[in-house]
């Protein structure tokens, strides 16, 4: 197994970097979009909220692979254009993750009770300022545990990029397996690499959570 790692190291490393890239991009852009969607859903009125609901249900209710296919084959076909698989991957991961993260963030914002908003208004803050300085800072702290779940799941979903030909980690392992006929070892090695880097990130998020948590308040999720 070690000899596989040594022999194909550049390829495996490249694949891993791609995987890491897609995960981080998806989670971070998804976070930014998720915050906007959550605010829109909570404070944007009925029409905005309905549009957001359709968006979220589409991305939560269909398989990731189908979403990749739609953006890679169907949409370019419709408009007679070509989109490369990297762009497609980034777009789909960000949109998909945003749909999930919106739910977590909205829940956390709702759990920051109405009274925090009232207190913020009482000192003359506008609603937007109250969200910015009072509701979001608390909600984002609360959301970290749920958020690490999202990270974990998205990190593994990147394997689906194999279907549109992105040379990420799983596709590298697949190639190595088929060249050497040592599938068992190559996938076992792959599982170990996934495990390693995901655990490292989880540990990091744990540390972040402990660092930013509000003194005197334990959040249990």
């Amino acid at each position, binding site marked *: 197994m070690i000899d596989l790692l040594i022999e194909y190291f550049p390829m495996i490393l490249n694949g891993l970097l791609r995987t890491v890239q897609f995960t981080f991009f998806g989670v971070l852009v998804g976070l930014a979009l998720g915050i906007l969607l959550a605010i829109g859903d909570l404070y944007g009125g009925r029409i905005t909220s309905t549009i957001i609901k359709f968006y979220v249900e589409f991305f939560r209710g269909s398989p990731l692979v189908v979403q990749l296919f739609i953006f890679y084959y169907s949409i370019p076909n419709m408009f007679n254009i070509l989109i490369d698989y990297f762009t497609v991957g980034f777009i789909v991961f960000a949109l998909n993750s945003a749909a999930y993260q919106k739910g977590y963030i909205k829940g956390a914002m709702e759990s920051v009770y109405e009274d925090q908003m009232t*207190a913020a*208004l009482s000192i003359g803050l506008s609603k937007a300022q109250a969200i910015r300085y*009072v509701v979001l800072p*608390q909600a984002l702290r609360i959301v970290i545990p749920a958020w690490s779940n999202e990270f974990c799941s998205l990190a593994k979903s990147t394997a689906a990029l194999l279907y549109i030909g992105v040379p990420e980690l799983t596709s590298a392992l697949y190639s190595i397996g088929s060249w050497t006929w040592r599938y068992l070892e190559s996938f076992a090695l792959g599982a170990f690499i996934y495990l390693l880097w995901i655990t490292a990130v989880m540990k990091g998020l744990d540390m972040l959570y402990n660092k930013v948590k509000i*003194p005197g308040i334990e959040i249990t999720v």
Partner: protein
Amino acid sequence: MLECRNLWKIYGKIVAVKDVSLEIREGDIKLIFGPSGSGKSTLARCLAMLTTPTKGDVFLKGECLTKPGVDLNKARARVGFVFQHIWLFHHLNALGNVELGPRRSLGLPKKEARERANQALREVRMEEWAKHYPAQLSGGQQQRVGIARALAMHPEIIILDEPTSALDPELTGEVIDTLRDLAKKGTTMLIISHEMPFAREVADEMIFFDEGTIIERGSPERFFTKPSSERARRFMARLIKRTRRE
């Protein structure tokens, strides 16, 4: 200074505030008391424009706040509010709680906002606790920070909605002391409270409130000796009995 005329607040079929007119002049300390659920808090929130009245007008220094197009954020910045359940911002320490208003709502420079916040914390004798978070403070200390948060805005009037009723009896004393200090400085206040000895000491006028409206108003002496309405008489008797027990 702060005035409401023919104020109504109706939630569905429930009439919380029924045709109330009230004026608080500069330097006044008015005290509202009455049974729970009688609409005192709703009235207080309408006066602070934290709730929009259904009917009637609210005036702050002659400026009507209930007509459309008024910048309510600016108006709220001029009226301090202290909540029954305190409602400090959980994620900020005492100083951060007090500083936020001057910094973001009034837009003061960082240094100036901090000075104001420190000054306000000194006024409630909480300067030593500036770095503590709400969850690390006792209820009484939290409420003093809540008062400092209102004070730091240099409000023209402070409305206090039962500032001690959520606290243990042994913690109400320190909050009452703080309010007594404010009274001595001539702070204009509208206080909802059932702390009768304190009321007798500081209030210029007491207002007995029940079923959404003012039943009787007058000097503390009058309420303590011969309230004219039967309801006020009975309520006072109960309160005085309770106070003696404590």
